[in-house]
Structure formats: C-alpha cells, structure tokens
C-alpha cells in the first residue's frame, strides 16, 4: 500500500510561543502542511528550528498558541483524547522502559495502555520483535539492553497499538549505522505495507533522503521549503563546489558577494591546518568565480571537487549557511 490522497495530518498557520524571563520565544511561526495516509514525512531542520515543537503539538503534549492541527480529522487542541487513540510517538532521546523488567514485559505493559487483549498484544510483540531483530533480546531486562536494542524496543513500543499515525523525534540519534539503517527500513516498510503515516523530525539529512516521501525544511519556526527530496535537489541547478583550502581563514564571508553563490558551509580541521568549504552555486560559472575569489584571498586550494546535490545543499541555498552555522547563530 502506498500513500493515498486521504489526509492524516493537517496543520494550518500553527504558531507556538514560549514565555521566557526576557521575551517570548517564537518556536513556530505560522507553519502549514498536510501529510497523507501511508506517507513518510520528514520535518528537517537544525537544532532549535521548531521540529520537536511541531511533533509535540501533534502528539497532544503541547497546545499551539494559535492555528489548528488535526490528526485523522481530530483537533489536537480540543479533542486530544480522540487523537491519542490513533497515534503513538517515540523519541530517540527517551529512556522509555522500566529498567528492572524485561523488554517483553515492558512492551506488554505499553500495549495495556491502549487496552490490547493480552493475546493480541503477545502476537503484536512477536511480530514487531521479528521485524526489528529484537526477538533474541525480549527476555533481557531493559537496563541490560544496549543502546541500539533499547531503541529497537522503543520503536516497537511506538507501533504496539497499530497506530494510524506515528510521530518520531530523532528516532536514530546516536545509533550505529547498521541499527539506524535497520530502523529506517522498518519505518518505511510499516508505512508502505500497512498504510501508516510516519512523521519524523530529524536533523539527519541522509535519513530524510533514505526514507521520506516528502520533507518540509524548517528554520527558525518557518517552513522554508517543502517537497520530495528529489524535487528539492533538482531545483538547485548545479552541483556544489567543495574546496580544501589552507591556511584556514577566519571566515568565508568574502564569498557572499560572488555572483551566483547561493550560500556556503565550512569546517576547519586544525590537525591538518585546512578548511573545507562547500559552496552552493547557481551554475558552473559561479563555481569558477568562487574558486578564483578564494585564491584572490591568498588561500591555497589543496583540492576541489563537485558534489552531487543533497538536502544539505538545499538548506544552504535557502538559508545561506549550513545547519552547524545556523545553530551557532542561534535559532528559536
């Protein structure tokens, strides 16, 4: 089963402010989007962009300051009890289990929060454990599970009640490559096989590219782009120019004025005494111009290459800087 035209999540002009001692902080500044049944939808952005706030509002943990959000037709502000029957959620940062009982008993307990008959719960636990490679570890106490298997158990918990919509916040954060891949495969297959909507907030661009049908890129509480990962990348035009330069300059701000340069992100390797700058350009002429400008600054270009477009470049093109620089500038 693939994504249908039925809308399962609908968000309109959603705004959320948090009171602080200094001044109200705007976490979400009037975002709108729709997610269809059976779709894997990503909310991508740097830390502090408003991703978690979005997920928290949709999973009924937070009220919006204004605007509306509906899940399977139920308003999250006025009908939270109805929403809770059709959703589940999980976060990569949560502990989510009682340490001194086994993973299996934990999962059974969580199934009881949704009123599943024990026989149904047992069958569901068996099925999810097989799909997530957890079967061998079900009888281990929760504290004895490794981070990866705990997270598999957390993901199993998020699907235990056969939810229509699953909200996930950084579901693979801190996991090794193999575990992350296996969880991503599971998420994608659950959406496609069972028509479930999976909505994930992440700052992991590779994750979005690997499993999301569509993505909304969010920055400082606003959606700055939305579409399929491919359509967003195609809109970039030319591949990015990557250069290793030495010595590392204080900044690459001099690239801002170069015609056709849409943004850049850089990192310094102090051990090798060089900086790597990734320049997002509108066309090949702009790439050549950017390389000349670097040399004009007295910097030696040690190596350079063109990099196929990824969502990282899409974000740089839209905001002018990468996630890291954006987080350093301070988000919401």
């Amino acid at each position: 089963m693939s994504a249908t035209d039925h809308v399962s999540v609908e968000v309109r002009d959603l705004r959320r402010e948090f009171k602080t001692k200094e001044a109200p902080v705007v976490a979400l500044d009037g975002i709108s989007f729709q997610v269809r049944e059976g779709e894997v939808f990503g909310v991508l952005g740097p830390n502090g962009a408003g991703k978690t706030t979005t997920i928290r509002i949709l999973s009924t943990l937070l009220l919006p300051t204004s605007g509306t959000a509906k899940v399977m037709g139920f308003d999250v502000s006025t009908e939270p009890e109805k929403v809770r029957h059709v959703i589940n959620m999980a976060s990569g940062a949560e502990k989510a289990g009682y340490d001194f009982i086994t993973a299996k008993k934990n999962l059974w307990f969580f199934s009881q929060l949704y009123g599943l008959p024990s026989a149904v719960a047992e069958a569901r636990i068996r099925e999810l454990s097989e799909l997530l490679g957890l079967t061998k570890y079900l009888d281990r106490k929760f504290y004895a599970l490794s981070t990866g298997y705990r997270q598999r158990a957390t993901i199993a918990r998020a699907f235990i009640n056969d939810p229509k919509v699953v909200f996930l916040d950084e579901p693979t954060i801190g996991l090794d490559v193999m575990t992350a891949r296996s969880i991503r495969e599971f998420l994608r297959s659950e959406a496609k096989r069972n028509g479930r909507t999976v909505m994930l907030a992440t700052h992991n661009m590779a994750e979005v590219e690997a499993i999301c049908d569509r993505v909304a890129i969010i920055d400082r509480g606003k959606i700055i782009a939305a579409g399929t990962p491919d359509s967003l990348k195609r809109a970039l035009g030319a591949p990015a120019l990557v250069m290793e330069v030495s010595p590392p300059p204080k900044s690459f701000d001099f690239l801002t004025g170069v015609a056709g340069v849409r943004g850049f992100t850089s990192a310094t390797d102090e051990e090798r005494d060089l900086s790597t700058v990734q320049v997002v350009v509108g066309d090949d002429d702009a790439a050549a111009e950017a390389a000349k400008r670097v040399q004009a600054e007295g910097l030696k270009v040690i190596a350079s290459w063109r990099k196929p477009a990824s969502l990282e470049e899409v974000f740089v093109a839209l905001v002018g800087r990468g996630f890291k620089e954006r987080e350093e500038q301070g988000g919401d």
Partner: protein
Amino acid sequence: MRARALVRLWSIYGEPLWVIVNMGFPILSSLAFSLLYLSIGAGSYVGFAVLGGVMVSFWSNVLWSMASQFNWDKQDGMFEIYLTSPASITAILIGMSLGGIINTVPSAAIVTAIGWALFHPVVYASWGAVVLTFFLTLAALYALGMTLSSLYLVYGREAESMNNVLQEPVSMFSGVYFPSIGAFSPFPFAVQLAASLIPLTIGMDALRRSLFFGQGFSGVSLDLFLLADLSVAFLIASMVALKALERKGRTDGTISVRIR
C-alpha cells in the same frame, strides 16, 4: 491499572535486594523505639513501636514510590508516553498504589514478625475494627500519595528534597511511634488538629485503640468515617490536580524536561 500494578511487582521481586533494603529503616526504628519503651519501664506500650514500624513501611513506600514516581517518569520520558496514550492517568496511579501496597506487605510482615518475636507485645484486639481501620488507612495514605504524585510534577527535581523534608516530621506528628493526638499526646491542641489532616495520624490512633485497647467499630467509627472521607477527598484532589496540571503543562510546555 492491573498492568501498572504488575510492573511494580515485577520490578521489586525481580530485584529481591530491594525488598531487604526496604525493610532496613522500619526494622531499625521500630527496634529503637521498642528498646526505649522497655528501658523506661513502659514495656506494655512496646506494641506501639512495632505497629509504627509496620506503618512506616507503607508511609515510606507512599513517599518514595508513589509521590516521586511521576517526577521520575517525567525525567525518563515515561510520563509523555502515559499522556499520549488513551489510558487514564488516575487508573495508572491506582495501579501503582496497589502494586506498592502488595510490595510493602513482605517488609511489613517481617517487621511484625521480628517485633512480636523479640518483644511479645500484649494485644487486646477487636480484629474486625483493626482490619477495616488498616485498609482504610492504606486507602487514605495511598490516595494522599496520588495527590502528592500529581503535585510533585510541578516541583521537578526538588521533589526528592521535599520527600526528605516530609518523611521525619510526618513520622513524628502522625504518632507513628507514640500517640500524637488524644489524651496522651505531648503536642498542643492546634498541632494535634493540624496533624489530624495526615491520614496516618488518624489511622495510627485508631489502630492503637482497636489493636491494643480492644475498641470495636463503635469506638473507632469517627476515625473510620474520617479516613473514608480523606480517601475520597485525596482521590478527587489527585484527579483534579492531574487534569489541571496536564492543561497547564500543555499550555506552558512543561510536561517534558526536554523542551527543544
């Protein structure tokens, strides 16, 4: 409710050391007060100390495993899971209470057995009144625990300090080891009145009278009525507080400790 009670039982009996650790404080304090009664020639009151040890086991369980639990759950992300599920939070708290009571029974039974074996307290009981008073005291105590659990959600990590602050004063004013209300109380009337708001105070007094002085239902009827009232009042207070705190938490964004 049943599931939460089972989780509590599996947790404690999965780690038998906890059962032993839970017994430590009630046994030692019960022994200390028993020896004190004996040393001042008041051996006939030694039963008060043994009974105190039993009830302190439950009071400690209320403070450390009920009142603090939601705060710990909040820090671990478990509270979010409860809230985003359709389960009733009150049912979860009642399940937690039932599990807590069953978990504390071995500790209370061992305190009783050791106290009886060592000091042979004289019992002149009206057992029907004892049993009813005991269960109503537990109901009121655990309902208080449910209310505290709701309120502790507001205090965050300060909740643990709050427990430390509450444990000893409550033990003293509720008369766990000596009568704190009535003719033998060392406290002025105003303090006795304030102490009577703690269900343990009323429960202990009624238990002492029914267990050691043979007072039947008629003798402890007012206490039973008060305990039943307190149980219902704390249960309602807990439900109202939870609803209000959930609304406040959703408005202020304080349900989670991880706000991003």
